[in-house]
């Protein structure tokens, strides 16, 4: 009755922290080409993250939640998606979004404070990075269920954090997905903390993956610093969901190396020796060692990316105040049109089609 629903006692691992093949029977090791692509994406992702963190310190960004330490989870998930699949990322997942092929400057639009989302979700099949915790889980379930109703071969993969698993929406999403057999993969990046709150204050469950059984969802626990294991597990889950086997829950055990955001001080709630322990489990070094790489193979490419971000972030975008009044509705309602004329002190006469304006040119509101 519960067969296959429970995670294994030990997290799935294909490559151990020292860079050797783990003896496992769970999933096959991805081929060398895939592993190299994963490594390359992690190098770019880490460089991007470091560059953005530096720009944030210089005051060029409003806020930035770093992905450092979680590159294996984020690239492993993003690369496991097929082109027709959708990704539902959070604020933490900029590296996943960049790995999906979205222009880094478009990713930074929201963190720079220029607009809320800078890329076209439909074009990239990537939802806007979501801030209200766990709310994106339901969007993923709905999108996936619609795909089934339309006979489309599309899987939705949603990223969430350990803290977000306590939210009611996560419960509702897991339940809806299971009842509807929706092709959704839930990838929980358990990075140990929700801002300052450690996992043991978040849940009394044996693991986050154990939560799946209560919904009848197959669940896996994976070493989130092993890109090969994350990739293999998410790929298998995407294939199973696409084949009609229903949703899958994956807990990826990882660690957030930076503070929650640039505005947070992690020394108030965690010890340096804990950070040091996780430094030894670095996802990039592990894969480089396994592949027999020097570790500098993709540095030039990553440096070009960082330089490009630096240059383009050096010029301030100046969003127009008029954009405040755009896209609130499909068509601007008359009352908003009048408020815009009023707020921006536009000459009413110069705006044809605005009725009900007073003669002095101010909106009647």
């Amino acid at each position: 009755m519960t067969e296959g629903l429970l995670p294994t006692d030990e997290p799935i691992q294909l490559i151990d922290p020292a860079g050797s093949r783990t003896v496992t029977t769970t999933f096959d090791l991805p081929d060398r080409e895939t592993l190299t692509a994963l490594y390359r994406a992690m190098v770019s992702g880490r460089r991007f993250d470091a560059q953005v963190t530096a720009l944030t310190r210089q005051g060029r960004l409003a806020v930035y939640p770093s992905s450092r330490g979680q590159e294996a989870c984020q690239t492993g998930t993003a690369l496991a998606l097929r082109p027709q699949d959708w990704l539902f990322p959070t604020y933490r997942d900029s590296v996943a979004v960049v790995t999906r092929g979205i222009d880094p400057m478009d990713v930074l639009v929201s963190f720079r404070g220029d607009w809320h989302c800078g890329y076209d979700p439909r074009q990239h099949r990537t939802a806007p990075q979501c801030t209200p915790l766990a709310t994106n889980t339901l969007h993923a379930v709905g999108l996936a269920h619609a795909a089934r109703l339309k006979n489309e071969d599309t899987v939705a993969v949603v990223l969430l954090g350990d803290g977000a698993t306590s939210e009611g929406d996560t419960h509702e999403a897991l339940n809806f997905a299971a009842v509807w057999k929706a092709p959704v993969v839930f990838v929980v990046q358990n990075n140990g903390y929700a801002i300052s709150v450690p996992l043991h204050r978040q849940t009394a469950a044996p693991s986050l993956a154990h939560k799946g059984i209560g919904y009848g969802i197959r669940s896996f626990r994976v070493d989130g610093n092993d890109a090969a294991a994350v990739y293999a597990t998410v790929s298998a889950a995407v294939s199973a969901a696409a084949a009609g086997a229903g949703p899958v829950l994956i807990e990826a055990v990882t660690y957030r190396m930076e503070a929650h955001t640039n505005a947070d001080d992690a020394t108030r709630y965690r010890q340096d020796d804990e950070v040091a322990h996780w430094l030894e489990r670095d996802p990039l070094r592990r894969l480089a060692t396994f592949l027999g790489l020097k570790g500098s193979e993709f540095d030039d490419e990553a440096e070009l990316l960082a330089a490009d971000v630096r240059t383009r972030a050096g010029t301030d975008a100046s969003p127009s105040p008029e954009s405040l009044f755009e896209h609130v509705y499909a068509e601007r309602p008359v009352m908003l049109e009048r408020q815009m004329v009023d707020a921006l002190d536009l000459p009413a006469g110069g705006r044809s089609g605005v009725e009900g304006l007073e003669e002095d040119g101010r909106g009647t509101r």
Partner: protein
Amino acid sequence: MSTVAQPVTATESSARQSVTLAGALNRALGDALEADERVVVFGEDVGPLGGVFRVTDGLAARFGESRVWDSPLAESGIVGTAIGMAMNGLRPVVEMQFDAFAYPAFEQITSHLAKMRNRTSGRVGLPVVVRIPYGGGIGGVEHHCDSSEVYYTHTAGLRVVTCATPADGYRLLRQAIDSPDPVIFLEPKRRYWSKETAELTVDGPALHEARVVRPGRDVTVIAYGGMLATALEAAEMGRAEGYDLEVVDLRSLNPFDDDTVTASVRRTGRAVVVHEAAGFCGYGAEVAARLTEQCFHHLAAPILRVTGLDIPYPPPKLEAHHLPNADRILDAVARLQWEDEPGA
């Protein structure tokens, strides 16, 4: 399934007929499901049962469970998944079972449903209709009678609509389903079973327009939803007292149709706003403020509000004290600083 837009055609329902509001809304859903295969209907008990108010009666049998189905019991889940479905080209029409039971969905409605188009610079619109049976007057117990409109009207990006009569309920629901914007569709429970002989058609005032339901010279009575019939009753009674009341049905609470309402108030010079919800920070406050700003020099008296009391919704035996009725509306009318006889 094609994703080509289907024009709204109401031919199926166009003969004159005697119909209740619940029946007209049922027809609207059926006709919308027929006209556009992107439309899906889901929520709690909306399948075989037909909803607790029977507004979805017969639809599951007619259209099958891939178009009309019972969801698990979770309001945030219903709205949140509707958002994802709309992102993937469907046009979900979801039902919240009662006004106060929509509150678990508040985060999805205000943080995502309302804002996705704006957040994505127009790239992802969410044509979702959230139907909410609302308001009191049915002897319902706690949590079943709230007038929750301002929680939604205060949120930019949502269209908030109330229906008051069968024919207009049909029209508004068809228009709401056809709208590219998310619509909070408020259905006054106390009027579900009131009948009208009418033609059901989408033609007529547009989704954002108020309408003058009864022309009059002395006072503009502004109402919506369940209070429209009460305002009309007051107008009938007022005739005997010498008042000729004009009654405006707002229909769309957001956006607000300034033009229709201000034209009426400039004509009559007096206005009373009526709603069931508490007066404090209620919808009438916004109406009174807007009208004062726009019609000040035409006003002969302050704008008055006739509203529910500033209390939690009372138990059934006391609700009559809370809810506005025709007498209270006429009391307000009598307080509008008449120096001359009305109509003089």
